[in-house]
């Protein structure tokens, strides 16, 4: 006897399948089926063959995950990324003059110099536009385009020395500070926009129950602290590298004042090759630290304390 309000079939008892007392008419079903030699779609397992670019980078460049609407954690990161991007846009415009770029050379060749400036500005604006779209739509493809455009705008044949065409800045120290700020903001922009995608993935996984996060606030706090500390350290290292034309003569000056003066006046040391030398020295120290397995040793010491 059928219970009022409840289906009379047995679907609720057996994985949603209706159990019947008599077999179905197979012939009738067979009659409805089309005679086709095609392989049914569900018979072919889904296999993702990585593209050439994916195999080169060891995985997809942009995640294909669909995100749920952004929560507070992601929104904060989006706002922060937006602010950093605007500052980066301004700094990019300041520290990357149009002279020496490919488009400026081209516009000079055709005799319309203003075209080069317009193109330069367009690239910066396009980078900002792509960035905005990427950040707020959480579309990693646009973010990638934005990174490429930000790097593209600074690709130019330079005369080895730092030149700021748009801002009449004089003084090596200020120049280098601005340069480091630009570099730090570019790296921070990449990291923050990356984190928008990363935390969106995490947030979606949390809300779909795929992952459970204990003490979300503590985990986020750690990230926020790192967001402050890491750029400061990176800036300090970069500053040390860029100021190598002062550091090396100061060290050499302990032994020979004449040699130090010569070094101070050397064009090479103040040029990009001086920076390369500085980088080499700094990273030789870092390599030595890693070579001696110091991070693991320090960790071991802390773990056993």
């Amino acid at each position, binding site marked *: 006897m059928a219970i009022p309000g409840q289906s009379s079939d047995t679907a609720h008892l057996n994985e949603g399948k209706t159990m019947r007392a008599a077999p179905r008419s*197979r012939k009738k079903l067979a009659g409805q089926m089309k*005679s086709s030699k095609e392989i049914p779609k569900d018979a072919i397992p889904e296999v993702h063959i990585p593209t050439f670019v994916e195999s080169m980078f060891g995985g997809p460049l942009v995640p294909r995950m669909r995100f749920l609407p952004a929560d507070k954690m992601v929104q904060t990161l989006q706002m922060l990324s937006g602010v950093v991007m605007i500052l980066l846009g301004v700094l990019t415009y300041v520290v990357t003059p149009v002279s020496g770029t490919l488009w400026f050379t081209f516009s000079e060749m055709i005799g319309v110099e203003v075209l080069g400036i317009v193109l330069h500005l367009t690239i910066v604006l396009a980078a900002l536009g792509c960035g905005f779209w990427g950040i707020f739509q959480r579309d990693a493809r646009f973010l990638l385009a934005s990174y490429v455009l930000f790097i593209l705008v600074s*690709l*130019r044949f330079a005369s080895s020395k730092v030149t700021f065409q748009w801002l009449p800045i004089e003084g090596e120290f200020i120049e280098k500070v601005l340069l480091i700020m630009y*570099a730090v903001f570019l*790296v921070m922009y990449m990291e923050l926009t990356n984190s928008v995608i990363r935390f969106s993935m995490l947030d979606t996984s949390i809300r779909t129950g795929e992952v459970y996060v204990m003490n979300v606030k503590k985990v986020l706090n750690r990230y926020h602290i790192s967001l402050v500390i890491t750029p400061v350290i990176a800036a300090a290292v970069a500053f040390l590298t860029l100021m190598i034309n002062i550091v090396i003569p100061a060290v050499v000056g302990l032994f020979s004042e004449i040699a130090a003066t010569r070094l101070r006046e050397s064009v090479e040391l103040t040029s990009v090759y001086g920076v390369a030398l500085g980088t080499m020295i700094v*990273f030789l120290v870092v390599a030595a630290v890693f070579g001696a397995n110091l991070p693991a040793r320090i960790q071991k010491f802390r773990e056993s304390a």
Partner: protein
Amino acid sequence: MFGSLAIALYMLGLTLRNQQLVTVAVVLLSFLTWAALKAGHADVASSGRRLEEKTDEEAGVSLSNLSAMRKLSAARVFEDGEVEVTLRVQNHSPLSKVLEVRDSLPEVMRIKKGANYILMELGPRRETMIEYTIECPLRGFYTIGPVAVRIQDTFGFFHREKELHVYDDFLVFPKTEDLKDAFVKSKVPKIFTGAVNIRQPGPGSEFYNLREYVPGDPMKSINWAAYARMGKVMVNERERDAVSDIIIIIDSRAVSETGPVSRNSLVYGTRAAASLAQFFLSRRDSVGLVVYGDEIVSVDRDTGKKQLYVLLTKLAGAMARGNTPLQVVTNRILPHINKGSPIIVLSCLEDDSTIVNAIRDLRARDFDVTILTPSSLEFEFDARRLDRTGYEVLKTERDILISELRGLGAFVMDWEPDMLLSTALAGARGF
């Protein structure tokens, strides 16, 4: 990727004599180096060996002080049953750690409640409990574990992973259907009384007939109403209850797994065998089991609840492998089965040319043979993997085989996937 970008920018900066690019590269490298330093990710040591080659203690200092324990709510469940898993993760180190913990589950398991993937901050010398519930939709032997633990730097550039080898096994029995009657009984009584009447007078519960009193009959069997009516002392005779030896034969050849993972002949066969075993054992019959695939696995007849679990365990572990013919099975088991015992065969009847001969042998020795045959044709047809012509041809061949088997006196039921077992059994016996 960031590392490659940094190096590319650095090289490009030097080539183009562009300080902007070199500075960006330096900042990026510093950023990465700091992250690596914080994550303790000195990948290549001074000796030149990679970390994976080192001892466990050396390789993952930050992970060496972690341990895990697991507890399951049940070690044996039926299909669609649930198991509650409690994972305890302990941090023995004096440092706080942000950990990603993933408890590895068999692919077929579904998480019903909670999560097996946790991101957490575990304080110094603290422990935490992770609880989740899994649903087990398919029979089999399963193992949960290992526990994968991962530590990564806050930016997600570097990570370090370790597997904690904590394993827990559990068993999923095929689910059973409640049967009211299996319509199967032995023609030859055994000396012990059971719950099945066999149409012979003797000790039992069902009325059989009336007969005249003979000295020695118990007083309680006298039918006083009949005595008053007929004028002579009459006693009630009862139908003898007896136990039967039931032999269930399961086909677990490779062909029996044709069809979707959760809907194929073997899945239905094991569920039917479990239901039948439960039913027969509950009425005190002896039940034996033969599973044949790449080898013949048999469980000798016995009674009781313990036997049920022995049978369920064998059914849980039945794997679709090999192609042993049915005749090989019958030749091997025939000398060991009591004459007249009911035999229930659960097979898709495919890809075996010895079926007719095997059933003929059984019938020739007067065994009561019931064949329930879940057809893989139907599973394939339902999954739309078989076209109309193919289905019709194969179905006709199958119908001919079934008719032939019926002609030998076996009770055969072409078991449709959506049909209840009790209905299929009744259909097989002609009810």
